[in-house]
């Protein structure tokens, strides 16, 4: 029902889709401000559930490869998301993982510390605000008054987009910054495509563009890790030098150190550089190397000040890490 009256010189078609994510990536598109007009002017948005009323069958009706590019944000948590990822892959020339969740698994990926059963138990039975005396859990199929209801299946493990379908490019960030998005769109429209599989951001660590870079001492050690709320943070000094756990040295640049400029340590949303296979592992070795002690007990004491190490070091990358998820108990 869309664009039946499209001119002969068709604008390239693109799609946006939203899987397991907070919605911030959708906001980021809107955040482009005036630049969005350029985007809208240059392309024809053929599918964008959050903004436009196209349905799945509209996409199914397209020819394979009819879309120049699909921008998919969010991790893969449910069967529906996996189906849509497959469908968009089939209909698109380029599939772009948009934002940290699609790129690495993101915050939803931290659910891999639990499994489906324990998540359901918590959400539908044990959480204090739940009233569910019958202990009903979501079912993929149920009958009510003769009517059949279905829900998407809930996977045990959250996956990044490329763990479900092949991905051509990645736009990192939670969410990707306007500059990154505009550059990416321009690159794609220019036709001069970068090598497949690239993350469309600089391949250096964040320190490279950090305004506080020069204030990190050459021989940095710390005997105490602090959390931002515990200290008055100096606004010009390297955060690691102040004992704050900054992921900058292990995290890809491209955001222009937004968080650091806002006086908060980098939390690692751009993921690692292309040369690093495990973001949290590298971050851990960087953090561990500044611990100022050779005594086992003292080292343990210092590292114990890092609350929730997985949630800190693998905040955005657990599903795509070598760990992937918490070890399952053998059945």
């Amino acid at each position, binding site marked *: 029902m869309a664009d039946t009256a499209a001119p002969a010189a068709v604008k390239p078609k693109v799609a946006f889709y939203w899987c397991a994510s907070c919605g911030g990536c959708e906001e980021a598109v809107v955040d482009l401000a005036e630049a969005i007009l350029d985007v809208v002017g240059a392309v024809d948005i053929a599918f964008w559930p959050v903004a436009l009323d196209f349905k799945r069958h509209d996409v199914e009706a397209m020819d394979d490869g009819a879309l120049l590019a699909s921008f998919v944000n969010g991790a893969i948590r449910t069967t529906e998301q996996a189906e849509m990822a497959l469908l968009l892959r089939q209909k698109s020339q380029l599939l772009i993982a948009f934002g940290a969740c699609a790129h690495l698994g993101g915050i939803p990926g931290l659910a891999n510390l639990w499994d489906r059963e324990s998540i359901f138990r918590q959400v539908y039975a044990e959480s204090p605000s739940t009233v569910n005396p019958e202990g009903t859990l979501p079912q993929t199929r149920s009958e009510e008054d003769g009517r059949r209801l279905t829900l998407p299946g809930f996977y045990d493990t959250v996956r990044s987009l490329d763990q479900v379908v092949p991905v051509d490019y990645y736009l990192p960030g939670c969410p990707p910054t306007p500059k990154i998005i505009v550059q990416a769109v321009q690159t794609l429209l220019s036709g001069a495509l970068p090598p497949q599989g690239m993350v469309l951001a600089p*391949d*250096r*660590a*964040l*320190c*490279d563009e950090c305004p506080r*870079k*020069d204030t*990190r*001492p*050459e*021989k*940095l*050690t710390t005997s105490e890790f602090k959390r931002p709320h515990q200290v008055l943070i100096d606004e010009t000094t390297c955060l690691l030098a102040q004992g704050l756990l900054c992921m*900058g*040295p*292990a995290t*890809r*640049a491209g955001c222009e150190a937004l968080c650091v400029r806002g006086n908060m340590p980098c939390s690692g949303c751009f993921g*690692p*550089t*292309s*040369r*690093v296979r495990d973001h949290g592992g*590298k*971050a851990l*070795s*960087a953090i561990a*190397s*500044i611990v100022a002690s050779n005594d086992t007990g003292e080292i343990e004491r210092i590292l114990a000040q890092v609350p929730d190490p997985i949630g800190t070091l693998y905040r955005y990358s657990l599903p795509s890490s070598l760990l992937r998820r918490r070890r399952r108990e053998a059945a």
Partner: protein
Amino acid sequence: MPQISGSPNGRPRVGVYICHCGTNIAGIVDVRALSEHAATLPGVVVARDYKYMCSDPGQELIIRDIAEHDLHRVVVASCSPLLHEQTFRNAAAKGGLNPFQVQMVNIREHDSWVHADRQAATAKAKDLIRAAVRRVALHRPLERRRVPINPDALVVGGGIAGIHAALTLANAGKHVYLVEREPTIGGHMAQFDKTFPTLDCAACILTPKMTQVRAHPNITLWTYSEVAQVGGYVGNYEVTVRRKPRYIVEDLCVGCRECIEACVYKEGKTRDEFNLGLSKRKPIYMPFPQAVPQLVVIDPETCIEFKSGKCKKTCVEVCGDRKAIDFTQQERVETIHVGTIVLATGFKVFDAQRIPYYGYRTYPQVYTALEVERLVNAAGPTSGEVVLRDGRRPESVAIVHCVGSRDENTNRWCSRVCCMYSLKLAHLIKEKTDAEVYNFYIDIRTPGKGFEEFYNRVQEEGTHFIRGKVADIYPAGDDRGRLIVQAEDTLLGKVRKIPVDMVVLAVGLEPRPDTQDVRRLFNITCSTEGWFLERHPKLAPVNTFTDGVFLAGACQGPKDIPDSVAQAGAAAAEALALIDAGSVELEPYTAFVVEEDCSGCKTCIPLCPYNAIAFVAETKKAAINEVLCKGCGVCVAACPSGSITQNFFEDEAIFEEIKGVLAHA
């Protein structure tokens, strides 16, 4: 895989060579099956097995194949690379390949020697070879670098080992810095009276060498000094030495000792370190009469001038116009440049108080062997008389062997010298006192030239030997104040309780307490016991894992005097060989920062144990000094953005190797 022009299927052409090592490998591993398997691997154009690959005909095979089969890479599956990597690299180089495009697979130590199941061992060898074939394809050609060697040498420690090493180097025309912590050189040997088994007078043979050191034009002797910092690398070490103030102007003091006489203290009040506290010394003193250099030293801890500033300074008065005493002297720090270092830092004797049931420091009749060395020494506190602390001459003496040796509760090792020095002391005590001497031993170990004969001699002199480890020492409760030494006479199967006037504890040898600091300073390793570790126990006994740093004497393990001297000579010879080569080749396994990837986060800089990484202010990136880099890989592992790469150990090569191991046929 990188594309190699001119090679079939785009891969480098690999030759695989499997060594039988006689039956060492072929006895367990099916070498024929290995070469058949290797021949099927992608990229392999020739695979052979041969009885001894390291032999000349074996190497010849490789050299010929490189030409005939146009090989780009070579894999040799044989023994540990420690033994023959050099051999096969040289062979490859002769054939015209870059030597670093050879990969060795250890199917002997890692396989045939540790497995018994032929099938499984063969399967494991296949996995390892497959991994090497995949890895070697990614080897890039590397070059060794040459750096010149500074001919000056540093010897640390002025005991007999250090003295001998210094003299050997100096006699060969090299300039030597000899640094000693104490105010005099001489070490433990200077404390001994006689040496076993010949009963030479220790001083008579040691002091001429000490004097030679002092007089040698090629030796700079710094006593009362310590090495504070070591930088640089083989051939080019920069060493900082801290020279403690002795409050004496070295050039002005003539060693007349009048100042000691004149000191306001009429009697010594301080524990005399050289005599192990068996006598007292004054605040101004010379450790012993033949000390080298012949310079006095003032101990600021006990000198009244230092404590109150109100001394009459009779020492200054008597020194007169020489003006050799200078209370204002400060510590000096000197920096020297040397190419090689000989460590001869020696040992410490076991602290007998760690075994409470032997009563050392509880019962005054209990002595350590080193204390008895001072007692029997004519220059010692009793002028060579063996008398107890109460002045009596002992009529019966027990010598307790293996105190702090051969014991899991203290030290596991045999200290090697105690049996012989115990026999020597038994002889000397008997000679001087005619006492009954009882040796309590577990085993008498006399495996040296003339040692067994000396043992027989002491036996014939009527010394008693009781085979049993002493279990307890306690007062006899008699009016002579004797001690009971209790042990099972294991040859009789009876517990014996022998009353004696004096007990001599044959204390073992231990690493010095600051061994770990010294180890870090010179960047060498220690055995689990704490002795400095030689590079190879048999084939490189004086080398360390740090090029240009050598070991001499008991810092490497317990040793007697002839062994210390022999090792010191060997260490000096190794150093000379290095110096006279003029330059040294460095391994190319260094790490480098990929500049365009580096974010300048500085994580790597403090981690480098060799201080080889610097932050370049202009580029705001890290850079590694290839000459200082030892290729340990710490920075590679730590770099949070993966921007450091190590030659020969690149990620891609390692991942290929892992994939190769896991890709079971």
